[in-house]
């Protein structure tokens, strides 16, 4: 189920503007890879290019290759809709559908795949997904309540449940805790630890301590100056990146001297 990702020579453009330049990275399966770096360094853009979500913005395109288990996401015949069904995403701000109940939110992706499900089957998916997202105990009595009735941290776990309900190959997380309180954050970090047994997880974070806590591998992105494209500066095992990085810019960022 979990797949690795190989990115070669990826350039990401918004119209004429080169946003991210020349990224080469291998993201291993069943592990957590964290992207860190200052604002505007292209880490979110790069993350969104991994399930072609950046194409939502008009004029966005890439050149280069993104192979998921050997299959190029940007091949001619590849439909971005199918890419997104295989590669799930959790956003910075919790975004459950306000017009759907908790259970309907979890099943939203299933319904898109237009799988006909029996009621009992659907109930199973809801329970399993919510259990894996660590939310079941808190919401099992009120599955028919609106998703927006939950707290911020619960909403974010609901979004994680929604993303994993369709059994994706990869789970992308774009600063999933930046809008949450410390307690909810630690709940979600624990959850990430558990989820990595089953999924390939890529997380963008602004919070270096968080990267240190949750990830196995860390990638540092930076940009040379305003208007310059972002680049992948350094990639390595998280302990090494935080203890003894090779690049002076990485060291400066990690020590909090800029960013």
């Amino acid at each position, binding site marked *: 189920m979990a797949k690795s990702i190989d990115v070669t020579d990826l350039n990401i453009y918004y119209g004429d503007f080169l946003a991210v330049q020349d990224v080469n990275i291998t993201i291993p399966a069943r592990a957590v890879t964290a992207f860190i770096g200052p604002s505007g360094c292209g880490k979110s853009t790069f993350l969104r290019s991994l399930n072609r979500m950046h194409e939502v913005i008009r004029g966005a395109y890439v050149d280069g290759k993104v192979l998921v288990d050997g299959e190029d996401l940007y091949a001619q015949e590849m439909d971005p809709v199918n890419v997104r069904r295989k590669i799930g*995403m959790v*956003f910075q701000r919790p975004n*459950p559908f*306000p*017009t*759907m109940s908790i259970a309907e939110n979890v099943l939203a992706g299933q319904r*898109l795949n237009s799988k006909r499900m029996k009621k009992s089957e659907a109930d199973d998916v809801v329970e399993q997904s919510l259990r894996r997202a660590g939310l079941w105990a808190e919401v099992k009595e009120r599955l028919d309540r609106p998703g927006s009735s939950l707290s911020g941290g619960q909403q974010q776990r609901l979004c994680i449940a929604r*993303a994993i309900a369709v059994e994706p190959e990869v789970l992308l997380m774009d600063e999933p805790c930046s809008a949450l309180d410390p307690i909810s954050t630690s709940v979600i970090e624990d959850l990430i630890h558990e989820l990595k047994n089953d999924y390939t997880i890529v997380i963008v974070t602004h919070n270096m301590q968080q990267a240190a806590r949750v990830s196995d591998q860390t990638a540092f992105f930076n940009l040379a100056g305003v208007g310059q494209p972002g680049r992948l500066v350094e990639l390595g095992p998280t302990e090494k990146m935080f203890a003894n990085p090779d690049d002076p810019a990485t060291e400066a960022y990690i020590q909090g001297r800029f960013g």
Partner: protein
Amino acid sequence: MGTRRIREEGLRVSSTTEQTRRTAPPQRPGDRVFGGLSLGAALLILATLAGVAIFLTVQGIPGITASPEEVKYDTTFLRYVGPLVFGTLWAAALALVLAAPVAIGVALFISHYAPRRLAQPIGYVIDLLAAVPSVVYGAWGMVTLAAAIQPVYLWLEEHLGFIPLFAGPASATGRTILTAALVLAIMILPIMTAICREIFLQTPRLHEEAALALGATRWEMTRMAVFPYARSGIVSAAMLALGRALGETMAVAMVLSASGVISLNLISSTNPSTIAANIAHSFKEASGLTVNGLIATGLVLFVITFAVNFAARAIVDRRKEFSGAN
């Protein structure tokens, strides 16, 4: 007791400071002026509405109680107003059914599908439709549309005549309730489109992205994120449009050749009239209690419009928790 007295005394002692703290902070003159103006505007609306209601009631009641011999329409008020109420609701409902899908489709095209260069001109053109006076629509409907659509009615009678709606005999002039409803539909299209467009544009980007990230196509995203979020807005838009269709006078009076019946037949030459069109037709030759009777039909229209708006509120409120407003 003792402690209480002490506490009370303590309160009294501190009452001077307490008082200064409790007085409202000083108000700026600008705030006061603006607050007064907006309050005035709100009261003015209420006063106007109350004025209209009082006028209609006071003038209408003699018409309601008048006996058939005293009025020109030779029947009791209830028998008189019945077909008119039916015609009003029937024409407005038809217009809404015809206009709503088009309005939602156009609004969705402008907000989510059209390239930006195309979206704006289309928006302008739709808004322009609202600027055409209703008498022009009436003239167009009476002269051009009715003649153009008459062969369609013949065809409908021939091929779909077994459905009561198209039972015929088809009108020779084409000035039927369906023609009137078509004209009404075009007239209510701009307001519905404009409101739907604004509401579709307000769909939070977050929800759209949530749907897309789950692998939704553009249409699935629309169904998952845009429509549910816009639901109450669409209902409001439809109700505003319905209000306009219920009260539209000139265009219906010109297009429709009415004969005061209750009939579901869409294409025949005997059509129910609407309250507003009937007032426009009859008012000039009316006198005495007949005028009161006509005003009473106006009162009925007023009540219907109110009821429609209340119904719309109720629909919107029913699933408030799921509306996305919280």
